[in-house]
């Protein structure tokens, strides 16, 4: 039973994540005044990728890329998706989730650096440095929310925001919300924080040697990651929802905000991005924390 439920969770996250990507591409195209691809384009891309042959330099590459997807999907097992959840006692345990996500990053990093291309290693080095930048403000925000709710469960935080728009943490703790939103931009790797991908500079960084189904698995990981990260912010600040469709809608709105910034920004040098993260979101999150504990 729990296995079937888990598979439903995993498939939902992938399908919804891919849908978001497709809709997002259409949205960006409209900002650019283009027609844009159909919204189901991401599904076509994934199936095409799985229908191509692929190369691997090393068994670690295959292993790492599977581990990357597995890490994100395993995190989703602990995520409350609207009214649904897998485990009662660990329903959205944010500390587990923050750590479990890293196994996804580690898997991906291991897989791509096994390919032996220096571009991929440079990309990962940038991504990890950037991670040190955005994780810290984000974690400070999470800590202040844990203090407020006296629990590290997302489900409890969602329950505490019940009762309409004005009870959302977004309204009650606006500084923290802005800091988290800035961190989300870095987490999703959208511009101006996409120095780790940088196609024209380091040939798409981590993905440089991925082909066929390896790329396909990476694509799925990215889709699941979009789903996971927007869902976490939705539960933390936008009051979650007991209706799964409204929940998805809130997540999508967050994603669109991120894409809107992406569509009109240029790329930050990643050292500057780290500095920026340690300046503005950090200041906002610390201010929020001080407001909470004083």
């Amino acid at each position: 039973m729990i296995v079937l439920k888990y598979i439903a969770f995993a498939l939902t996250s992938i399908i919804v994540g891919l849908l978001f990507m497709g809709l997002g591409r259409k949205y960006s195209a409209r900002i650019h005044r283009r027609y844009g691809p159909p919204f189901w384009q991401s599904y076509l891309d994934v199936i095409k990728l799985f229908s191509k042959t692929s190369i691997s330099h090393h068994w670690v590459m295959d292993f790492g890329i599977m581990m990357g997807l597995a890490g994100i999907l395993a995190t989703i097992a602990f995520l409350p998706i609207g009214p649904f959840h897998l485990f009662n006692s660990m329903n959205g345990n944010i500390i587990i989730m923050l750590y479990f996500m890293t196994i996804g990053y580690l898997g991906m990093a291991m897989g791509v650096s096994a390919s032996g291309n220096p571009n991929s290693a440079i990309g990962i080095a940038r991504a990890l440095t950037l991670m040190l930048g955005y994780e810290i403000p984000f974690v400070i925000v999470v800590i202040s929310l844990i203090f407020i709710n006296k629990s590290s469960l997302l489900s409890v935080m969602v329950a505490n925001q019940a009762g309409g728009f004005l009870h959302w943490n977004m309204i009650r703790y606006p500084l923290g919300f802005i800091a988290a939103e800035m961190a989300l931009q870095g987490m999703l790797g959208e511009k101006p924080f996409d120095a780790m991908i940088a196609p024209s500079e380091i040939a798409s960084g981590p993905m440089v040697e991925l082909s066929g189904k390896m790329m396909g698995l990476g694509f799925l990981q990215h889709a699941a990651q979009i789903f996971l990260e927007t869902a976490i912010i939705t539960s933390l600040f936008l009051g979650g929802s007991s209706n799964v469709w409204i929940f998805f809608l809130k997540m999508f709105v967050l994603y669109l905000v991120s894409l809107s910034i992406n569509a009109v920004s240029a790329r930050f040098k990643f050292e500057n991005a780290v500095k920026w993260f340690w300046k503005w979101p950090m200041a906002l999150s610390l201010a929020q924390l001080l407001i909470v504990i004083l």
Partner: protein
Amino acid sequence: MIANLFLITLITAFVGLIIGGKLKWLRWVLFTGLLTFLSIRLWSFYGNWGYTEVYKVLSLGNLNFTIHLGITKLGWFFAFFTTIINLIISIFSIQKNLREKDEWGIGVLWMILAGANIAIFMSLDWITFFIAWEVMTWTSYFIITPGWKKSFKAANYYFLLSMFGTYAMIIGIWWLFSNPSIHTLNIAQSISGLARYWHVSPWGAGTVSLLFVTAFFAKSAVFPFHPWPAEAHAEAPDDFSPYLSGIMIKYGLYGVVLFIVPLFIQLQKFGFNGATVHGIPLLSYLLAWVGAITAVWGTYKAIVSNDMKRLAAWSTVANIGYATTGIFILSSNGVTGGIFHIVNHAIFKSSIFVALAAVKYRTHERDMHRLGGLATKMPITFLTFLLGIIAAAGIPPMNGYASKWLIYQALLSGKFPFLTTMIFIASTGAFMYLYRALHSIFLGQLPEKYKNVKEVPVLMQIPMLLGMLLMIGIGVFPGYVLRPIGQIVKSLGLVPMHVTNTTMFAFLSNVNALVVFNMFSLSFAFAFVLYLLGKRRHHVEPLDNYTAGQNPKDFGMTTEMYHFALKFYEPFANLFKSVRIGMRYFYDALVRDANLIGKSFASMFTSSTMVSSMLFIGGIVTVIIVGWLL
């Protein structure tokens, strides 16, 4: 019963001393045998809590020097797990020392060290503790430097810092004994005595506890003493580094749990009239901050280091920082988490160091940028290292996660937001340097000269396999370790946390480690099915890479050149350039001034016989006058 262990250890060491020539491999087999015997004996001690042995050594007037040995829950636990880990490492040493030249002294001293290790954990009074501590310091000093110039410098550095700590400790012990209201050498009595004295004179008692803290922190490389592991762990013999980093660095924290933590807990319980922060004494809070600073500083140094053993040593410093912070929170979760992290760190860090020793055994190389791509050649070593870094980064299915999670629970439920943030910074940074090590050593391009490297022999693989088993086992079933720790926590006077074999219950949330593990396996199976659905993959050569259309062989590109590993995080390090330069000026100025003062002192004694003899006479006169006045 306990003394017999030391007798047998000494006899074995003596046998090891006289073995030589062709039979020298026997010395290391003997070492493994000794450790097996010790582990079995220690296992049989389980449950004899409160058992003591007293030996009268000598009496001077009304001073009786006695040796008190006994089995406490805390001591037994530490003695048992350190001996087991030492046993695992010793299997590696058998193979490693077959062709070593200078292993004669190492083997014998290490046997004595294994005995001193147990003596530290079994001693009940300060004199015994101090003797065992000294034996441990001296033997380890000679093991680190078996006659090599480079390691001699490192060992001296280590030894000086240890000496500093030892002096602090002996002053503290003398003070405890000479103070009329405490006047005891027994450890348990001195705790309650000092706690009572705290109400009389907080500053005096605080200073004494700080003396002990200095001694313990010097051994454990906590903040002001943090640089020694990077020197000593890196230069020590490769098979001794796991022991040094896994076990020896924990003695300080053992001392903290033995003496300082019960002291603070007693203060907390029987009303504390000093300053408190969130319910814990101010001193304890400050020491928790020292731990957090150690964690962050160790992480930063690990990120910017290029030598693989140095990187692992800095990582040890960072992990000691976590444990220190957890322990000084003084809550049940914190102390449990701290002790649990000590155990976990001992397991994963000795596995990591064993894997690094295996790499060095085959390649004789320590600089990470000269290695690369070894995962194909040494799969077992690679897997050990991989699981080790997953555990060290605190990622769920491995053991490091459980203890870090407990420390977080303690920090969050005790309302320490800034400490939590510091620990989190260190933890995210840990991911950076661990990945860097994994990439530079095992992934990327395999240098041409290591084309024929083979996996290490079976005898070296056994400890790695055991290490992996322990890491996964404790990660999935933390309850088996947490229950004995719960007993220790109870004996310290705290309420032990509620655990089952797989689930940890805490104030904020619970974690079922088995479910976490199953979820990961399930997800991996899911990803694997997707992988199988895709079209066939084929293998290509490492140099068949995207190079913007240029065939790398055409322009003389070699695998060494195509491996990105040197200055991996240089842009990150450059972020702190201004701070670093400022620090360097400060240290340079410090060294210059110290040298100047030292030189002027030296010149007083060396410039002329007149001046130096007058100084000598003046000194003696001063001593005599001061002696009369007092």
